[in-house]
């Protein structure tokens, strides 16, 4: 079995980390994006209903 190249392994570790506080993994970032979408839909729906 090939040993992983140390440079590649270091780069992959760097890419796996998002560098964002409290959102350390990519699935969490994607979840935040989905949550912000949901929030916008709720706010836009509220605007629709409030001023209908």
């Amino acid at each position, binding site marked *: 079995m090939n040993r992983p190249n140390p440079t590649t392994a270091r780069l992959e570790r760097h890419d796996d980390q998002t560098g964002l506080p409290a959102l350390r993994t990519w699935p969490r970032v994607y979840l935040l994006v989905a949550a912000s979408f949901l929030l916008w839909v709720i706010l836009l729906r509220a605007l629709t209903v409030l*001023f209908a």
Partner: protein
Amino acid sequence: MSLLDFLVLIGSMVGIAVYGAWRTRGRRDLSTYLKGDQTVGWVTIGISVMATQASAITFISTPGQGFQDGLGFVQNYFGLPFALILVAAVFLPMYRRLNVYTAYEFLGQRFDAKTRLLGAGLFLLQRGLAAGITIYAPAIILSTMLGWRLDLTIILSGMLVIIYTVMGGCEAVNLTQKYQMAVIFGGMVTALVILLVRLPASLTDALTVAGGFQKLHAVDFSLDVKQRYTFWSGLLGGLFLSLSYFGTDQSQVQRYISGASLRESRLGLMFNAVLKIPMQFAILLLGVLLFVFYQFEPAPLFFNQTAWHQAVAGDATHSAQALEQQFTALQAARQQHIQAWLAARHDGNVPAETSARAQALADGAHSDALRTEARSTMLATNPGLKGNDADYVFITFILDYLPHGLIGLLVAAFFAAALSSKAAELNALGSTTTIDFYRHLVRRDASDAHYVRMTKWFTFFWGLVAVGFALFCHLAENLIQAVNIVGSIFYGVVLALFLVAFFLRHVGGTAIFWAALAAQTLVFVLYFSLNISYLWFNFIGCAACVGFSLLLQAFMRNPPASNRVPT
């Protein structure tokens, strides 16, 4: 426009272009020329992706869309965040791992050479045909409103973008897009602030009036397929279109593969996934507030005043003037009814509020009818009249209500948007022609300097095609729609090539190649035999290509030899 406006416009546009060309001059390394110096951070990538998507039409026409139809158009972007998540999680890591210059190189590595050439060829055909529109569409509006010569507007803006894109390549595009977006946002925020300050009602009253006229109907969960904008069509259709555009269109792929690392590229995409919906909402809201503004302030019967004055001059029966008089009288009555509506609302007098509101809405419907009649009158005197009058609403407000200097800033913002998306398109067309055709078919072992020189020539060539196309756009009445139709005819099959590459790993190059040709033929046949909206061909092309590839692969004896992409 005054001298000050021209100074702001020319200073900002030429200044950014010269700075971009100077900072990136003398790049001879192919990787740097096509993908930047690989130190680009996520903010630059995020802005660059946003600037590439947002053309001048976004900032000129979207407020008009809000003025005419309200906020409902925002639903068209509901699929975009999920498409960007898919691109960041699936497409981007593969592009970076294979270290490709173009998205179509990936098809070559995953399938074979013929599939790569097919994907690249479809992109060049579609993007090359659309190339003139990003210059023509804002030029026709700005030249009409500002009294400039259309041909000179197209040639000067076209040459400016060609010069800095050819000189600096991808790095110049990324760099200039950052400053162009600063001009765009500066201009749009200034316009919004001035509109809010000049609005003769409080924000709550303004929203009440907008809501009364159904302009705040932002989310519609209806399952009626005849509704133009619904939550479901936006989510599903938007996902499909955004995935095609962000995942497979080289003008976007080239922006995000230029990141310093996978992390920077991903964050740049997520930046757009979070900000795109609020940005479109803000631009549409600007249009809605313009609608409210023109309920209190005198509005022209027809916002494209140049065309209107021509119609009045050529109208022997004086029906145009009669319509204008009716509209002015109606406008005064409507203002009174709206004032009464808001006063009754403040007093808590519900019956009076309901009555005044009904009268105001009836006035609004009558105004719309007069506008439709005015358009018919204009078409009678000028049958070649093109474009939607709502496209002229925002620019009319800018010219009538903004102080000198700021008019120049806003016009600069429109040009910045046109140049930033055009630069990305030319950059992508030049790169694809060099990497997927010239280097692959004509000269395989030349030096980097040679390929950079050839990319510059191809970029220049596509720039001339775009300018030439824009100059002759007026010869075909429905050319803009024709280009959209061409895009929809090809986009589905291109997306299918990538979806099969990523998700159906047992399908090989020969199966997908013939499936793509069969699907494309089917789309052509259906286009000429079925009377359905052209947007459906995106889905039909994609579904047919995926289905045919599975069928063909099932009948092929040998496993695909070309399925060799590392996972």
